[in-house]
């Protein structure tokens, strides 16, 4: 949902290719594009597997210009994981409602960033980067990548949310705007 929100809010895909669903007590926009849906399904499936096994440290959504390949925006989600938690551990006492309230708050913040992030007035594509433990075997359809930082950037932090097993800290970096 976070990735869908970013793709919608930043205009990476046309707004008419999104549909409204209710999730976390919010109206969310999710893609109806079958190719994109399939891609996200595969990525999220792999990500879920890695998350459950405590292998993921960070997820990054990189937005770049198709024409110049320049990185224009970089959404970074740092994931702190309690590795003492196993399948046999006692469940943590944090209600689903409390977690959803926090997620909702972050999604609303992602929406709010549109009010000040630089306009992406060129056709853009996106990449998903997942930072994992070093020795993890890379699945066939994935490849190693650099961090894809932005030259001359500014950044803002978003709120974090925690399930008590995973804590997610978010931020977005974007190209500095010079003119006022």
């Amino acid at each position, binding site marked *: 949902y976070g990735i869908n929100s970013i793709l919608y809010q930043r205009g990476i895909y046309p707004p008419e290719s999104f549909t*409204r669903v209710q999730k976390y007590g919010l109206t969310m926009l999710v893609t109806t594009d079958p190719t994109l849906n399939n891609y996200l399904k595969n990525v999220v499936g792999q990500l879920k597997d890695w998350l459950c096994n405590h292998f993921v440290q960070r997820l990054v959504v990189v937005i770049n210009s198709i024409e110049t390949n320049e990185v224009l925006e970089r959404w970074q989600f740092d994931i702190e994981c309690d590795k003492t938690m196993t399948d046999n551990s006692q469940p943590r006492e944090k209600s689903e409602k409390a977690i959803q*309230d926090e997620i909702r708050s972050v999604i609303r913040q992602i*929406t*709010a960033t549109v009010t000040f992030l630089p306009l992406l007035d060129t056709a853009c594509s996106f990449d998903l980067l997942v930072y994992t433990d070093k020795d993890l075997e890379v699945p066939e359809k994935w490849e190693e990548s650099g961090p894809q930082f932005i030259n001359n950037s500014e950044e803002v932090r978003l709120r974090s949310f925690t399930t008590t097993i995973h804590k997610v800290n978010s931020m977005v970096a974007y190209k500095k705007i010079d003119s*006022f």
Partner: protein
Amino acid sequence: MADEGSRESSSDREGDELPVLFPGLVSADSCCRLVCELLKHVLYQRQQLPLPYQQLAFFSRTDSGLADSSTLPHSRRNEQNNCKKFQRVLSELNEIFQNLEAMFMLTLVPCVHILLGGSIVNPKEMYEINMERIVFGSTEESLKTVSCIRKLFHTLFVKDIFNELKSIPLMNTVLLVQGHRDCGVQWFRPKLNYRIPNRTRKLVINLACDTVNFTSTEQPTSYNHDDYIWFQAPITIKGFH
């Protein structure tokens, strides 16, 4: 109650304050846009709209082809009722924005209040947009509107004002605008007995221009507060999910 010859400042009371400093002159048109964008922002962030205004406007155009409700099954009738609700709210908001624009052309507007919930005497939340420290310039000599909007919302974002986690009930939203008593505005109605609420959760957004490098003629307007009164928008925005 205001003391004679001075304006009672709502920032004297308890509440959050957010200073926003613009590095140049700001046009009246930009100020109007800032107020409109803040109204849209508050309504979404305080859960009175299910989506931001621009997105609602987009969906209202794509949803407007729904069939006559009498031929629809119950679930689609609900959908159409929701669609009618949000088209009504959009239409009301558009009317407010148009009339705000007219107001800003008629008079200097030192202050705007957005009141959520409760009553006008005792709202649940109040958002004050104070423009007394703005130095007005023409469009050509002023900062670009889009840059002012970006500066405002970046400041708002970093301050992380709207960080409440709990669900907020639907409320009514009322808009009050200060203007010259003789400005001749028709749509907004004078509210001479309006007193700034003092027992409410409040955010004061102080918009100001950084005057360090300005000439002596480029200074904030000196308002004679006896000449300025409050006007209320005749529309109350009803939140919906």
